[in-house]
């Protein structure tokens, strides 16, 4: 198995006729991913590489099982697109769109939380489960196997580009990926590393997780707490980038609010300390991901 997406997922793409979305549709179909339908208002009746296009998700659902939506609509329409997906009983929403207003993100997080829907993104490059030949979004491009081969290591990354590089390090070590998830590069995203570790903990196939962390947000600190409290019991190899930002001059901080609300969390050194204390492997060198994986997976 895998998490989030597998060969049985009923996938729909919102904004499918756009340049990027139609290219991704082609790559995904070539990979073997089943895409059931697409939606672009006003373009119902067309098709994109054989995938039927509808005006609404409601129409697309006639005779089709749809549980996963990939959103490629412009920023101003993302919130409405998520609402449409949720009202049509979609269970997983992946938002590829960049530059979504943060208030819209806060609202869609609040709304999907209430409705029990999982959101990944915004500003994600996608999700891929290589063993299922299932990919959502641009991840892997037209050559997913270059970095993503089937296996038992979960990958979670705040950086889109480094999702592939982390998976490639897993491949170099002689292993493969159960599911790789690009969380989205924004400060506020639908699913946090902790949310995904919960899923990887349940996934029988996943034996270890590689996580890419960056400065800002308290996500890595939350992971530390989560492991310390027994929420994730498999080996976690966490790399935290951007240590140099702590040496930059002050002045980037605007006002007192952040310091009062977050304290020192968000700093790479705080993240590293929290992860190490909880028992995660936190290599100093990115190369060490290889040797640490070999050590923990044997």
């Amino acid at each position, binding site marked *: 198995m895998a998490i989030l997406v597998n060969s049985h997922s009923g996938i729909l793409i919102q904004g499918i006729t756009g340049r990027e979305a139609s290219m991704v549709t082609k790559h995904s179909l070539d990979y073997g991913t089943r895409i059931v339908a697409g939606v672009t208002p006003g373009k119902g009746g067309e098709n994109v590489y054989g995938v039927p296009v509808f005006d609404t998700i409601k129409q697309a659902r006639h005779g089709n099982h749809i549980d996963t939506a990939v959103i490629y609509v412009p920023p101003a329409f993302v919130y409405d697109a998520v609402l449409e997906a949720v009202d049509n009983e979609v269970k997983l929403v992946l938002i590829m769109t960049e530059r979504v207003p943060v208030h819209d993100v*806060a609202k869609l997080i609040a709304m999907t939380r209430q409705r029990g829907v999982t959101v990944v993104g915004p500003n994600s490059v996608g999700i891929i489960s290589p063993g299922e030949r299932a990919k959502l979004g641009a991840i892997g491009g037209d050559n997913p196997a270059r970095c993503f081969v089937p296996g038992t290591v979960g990958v979670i990354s705040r950086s889109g580009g480094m999702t592939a590089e982390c998976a490639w390090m897993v491949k170099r070590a002689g292993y493969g990926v159960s599911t790789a998830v690009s969380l989205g590069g924004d400060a506020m995203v639908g699913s946090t590393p902790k949310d995904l570790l919960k899923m990887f903990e349940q996934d029988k196939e996943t034996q270890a997780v590689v996580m890419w962390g960056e400065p800002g947000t308290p996500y890595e600190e939350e992971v530390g707490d989560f492991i310390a409290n027994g929420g994730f019991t498999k080996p976690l190899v966490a790399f935290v980038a951007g240590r140099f930002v702590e040496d930059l001059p002050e002045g980037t901080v605007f006002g007192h609010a952040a310091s009062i609300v977050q304290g020192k969390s968000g700093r790479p050194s705080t993240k590293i300390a929290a992860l190490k204390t909880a028992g995660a492997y936190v290599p100093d060198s990115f190369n060490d991901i290889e040797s640490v994986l070999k050590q923990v997976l044997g």
Partner: protein
Amino acid sequence: MSRVLENVAKEVLREHSIPVPQFAVASTPQGAVEAFKSIGPPVVLKALVPVGKRGKAGGVRFASEEGEAEEQARDLLGRELRGFPVDRLIVEQKLDLAKELYASITFHPSERRPVVVVSALGGVDIEETAQTSPGSVVTATFDPFVGLPVYKAREMWSDAGLSGSELRGATDILWKLGKAFLDLDAKIIEVNPLGILQDGSVAAVALLMGVDDDALYRHQALSGRVQAGSDRAWRPLTKLEKEMIAVDEADPYRGTARYTEMDGGDIGFLCGGGGGSLLMFDALSRHGGRPANYTEFGGNPPERKVYGLTKGILSKPGVKGLFVAMNITNNTQTDVVSAGIVRALNELDIDPRTFPVTVRLAGVNEPEAKAVLSAAGVEYHGDDITMEDAASMMVKKMRAAYPGY
């Protein structure tokens, strides 16, 4: 995020019925005197720069006479405050405060909801206060659909120790701030101090506000009044940084690039991807290298953008090597990136056989990239090496070229 200058923040919040002191903006000592006359003594003169903690940096002065206003204005104007030149002042009524409160609204990073922080012990030392007497700081998040309820605002101030007319006045203003936060797509509104006047009324005395760049399209009222992205720098842009913005904007829809100049350093740094660049900067530093700048590019930039960036990076005095690296991508044309690098090296008459250059580019058209680079005498690497290997290779080359490095 766009940092909103205090005069604009005050205008905008006044439009939301939030009481602010009477103020005017002056760019000359004479202007400050005019403002002094119309407002009446005593006044506060504050440097109008997009940084917080201005008081501690000497950017806040007081005047109770015309001559004093002129003198203080003359002293402030033309100064630099945390690197920002002071070319304008805000001259405002100095209110007689009975109490200084603190109030802010931001997003709580783990709750991912708006969070309100209040304290009855406001003022310049609020962070210390939060540390030393955490009980005096009251925090609560609210639902972005519902907004900050009046009762919640009241509850918070009551917990913070207010009562009577102070409680009523502070509640009203906090509720309005909550509404403004949502209405304006703000990322932060901070009022410090939120003043309680001798007559019991309440006013937002000093204000700090940042709004979401990505939502500016739906706020006509803010257009032209705020500068997008103004929170990214810890100082004003350098000349080279401004030139690099021009390079980036010459091809606005193809590829993105950001150049940040570092103090000192000798390795020109051109890396792909936000995450990859963080990794590479750390790795270079850990291996003993000294990056002279921080440049990340992405989104398949055209040749002339890469050329412009490379040329800019190499033009900084003291740069003695060039490091180009990125993570494996599926859309970056590595041959195009290579062509841009080679053109810049050629134009600057740099010989890669003596000037250390390390390239690690893995993406589309790798054989062509290798050909372009090899023809120019630059060693090509793709996924034959890791990113970390590329960093250590760069430092080794620096050591070989410059004994004692």
